[in-house]
């Protein structure tokens, strides 16, 4: 028998043994239909309930806002803790639970716009805050399930719109 045949046969056997070892751990040899599995997963998700990311219950949000508004209604300019509470409420209204530094920076600017640079006179705070909160609520309703790429742009647009609104309120 020519040597070359022996070598080829040895290689073939090695290849087959290796394939058998690998395929031996495989219980099912049919190809995996990824599209079908994903479609099935999506059907099951829809049949249960739409799974929104980081959903927040309305009562929790309302509770935070109530505390904030009660504080304002007393005519006291918010302490750092209350500002943090307002910020938290705004995050929740926007449906955000996790945010990167850029989004935090934009939202912080929004909060600073809301706070204003001067301390408002007692008695005007509550009304202003209510109007602002209503306005933010309207915006948040327009923000659908947020898109990974567009969120920062949307927030920047929101910030601009809030600024314009404040200017028109002042005038």
């Amino acid at each position, binding site marked *: 028998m020519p040597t070359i045949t022996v070598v080829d046969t040895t290689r073939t056997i090695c290849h087959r043994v290796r394939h058998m070892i*690998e395929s031996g*751990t495989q219980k099912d040899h049919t190809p995996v239909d*990824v599209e079908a*599995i994903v479609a099935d997963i999506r059907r*099951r998700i829809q049949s249960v309930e739409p799974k929104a*990311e980081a959903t927040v219950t309305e009562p929790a949000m309302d509770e935070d806002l109530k505390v904030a508004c009660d504080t304002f209604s007393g005519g006291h300019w918010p302490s750092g803790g209350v500002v943090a509470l307002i910020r938290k409420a705004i995050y929740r209204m926007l449906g955000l639970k*996790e945010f990167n530094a850029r989004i935090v920076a934009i939202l912080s600017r929004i909060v600073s716009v809301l706070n204003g640079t001067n301390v408002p006179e007692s008695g005007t705070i509550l009304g202003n805050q209510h109007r602002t909160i209503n306005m933010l609520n309207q915006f948040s309703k327009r923000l659908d399930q947020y898109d*990974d790429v567009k969120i920062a742009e949307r927030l920047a647009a929101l910030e601009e719109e809030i600024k314009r609104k404040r200017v028109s309120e002042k005038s």
Partner: protein
Amino acid sequence: MKIAFVSPFFGTEAAGGAESECRNTAIRLAASGINVEILTTCARDIHHNWNMNYYAQGVAREDGLTIRRFRTEHVNLEGFDALNKKIIQGVKLSEEEERLFMALYVNSLDLYRYLSAHGNDHDWICFIPYLFGTTVYGSLFNPARTILIPCLHDEGYARLQAVKELFHRSARIVFHVNAERELAQRLYGDLPGRILMIGEGIDTDLLSDADRFRARYNISSPFVLYAGRKDESKNVHTLIRYFTAYKEAHQGDLKLVLVGPASLPIPERMKDEILDLGFVPHQDRNDAYSAATVFCQPSLNESFSIVMMESWLCKTPCLVSGKCAVTREHVVRSGGGLYFDNYADFDGCLTYLMEQPDMRNRMGLAGREYVLSQFAWDTIISRYIREVLAD
């Protein structure tokens, strides 16, 4: 046969997928008996100022290759940054701005003079990747001998008129996967050159040890692995956010392990659930692939994704973003994993993978088979010789 690879950066220190592909392909083609010359600049890589000539100019022999390095043109990097920012933001550059941008993006007149004088000495000149002056301007000299290996991404740069013209003048274009070819045809229309679907070579003799990884990093829980640069361009922030939401919705000790350079903020309450190991040695990363329950590639913009191939070689299934046509094509073609378009998908797919160990194993093996059959170096080099370089 004599061929040249033209790349803006070249060397073991050059970071980047295209640079790595160029080097590995060139070395293996040279080993197969082809005379391979590298024409590159003295700059180090895209992450370093390309006004700095890191390497000495001249000719060297390394790994069976002749490497000719040429000095880069000194340019106004602030001007580049301004135009680059516009492109990233999706602003369309004027004709004049585009010309300026290409002029600022890694050029070497000495390299172009060499191509003008010696281009005909080569049977083929391979340009990789599509962007950079070295490819856009270098390919002007011998378009009939030009092979473009674009590593094309769906990004603002791909929409430059100069890039469209580059694709139209190249005699042959080598794509990694169908999704990349489809993107090119969508952006540039029908291309006159020969279109070749070759793929990218992978070292398939990857050795890994799951137990060694678990012992070294003291991780006994099941975990989802991400390997690669941890920044927003790779969409890792979304993975962190999705995994945080997943952990809040599900019981269990599943962790997310991140390995690779750079870092992103991790919520304080998730510090024990999301483990950022930073840059780890290559062998540790291979061991991590084996130890992982699922590998996640959340990037929206890949032209190939070597880390997915490495994960599959270790029989670990991949969960990828369905918004990236390339990685989605990989999992659908191979049967080696699942894809998600949003958080609900992510939750559903990860839950499915965690609850179906048999299917997880099948997917891992299917992925491995896909890599071995499509992207082993023998296969890739054979395709280059038979399809890319042949008449």
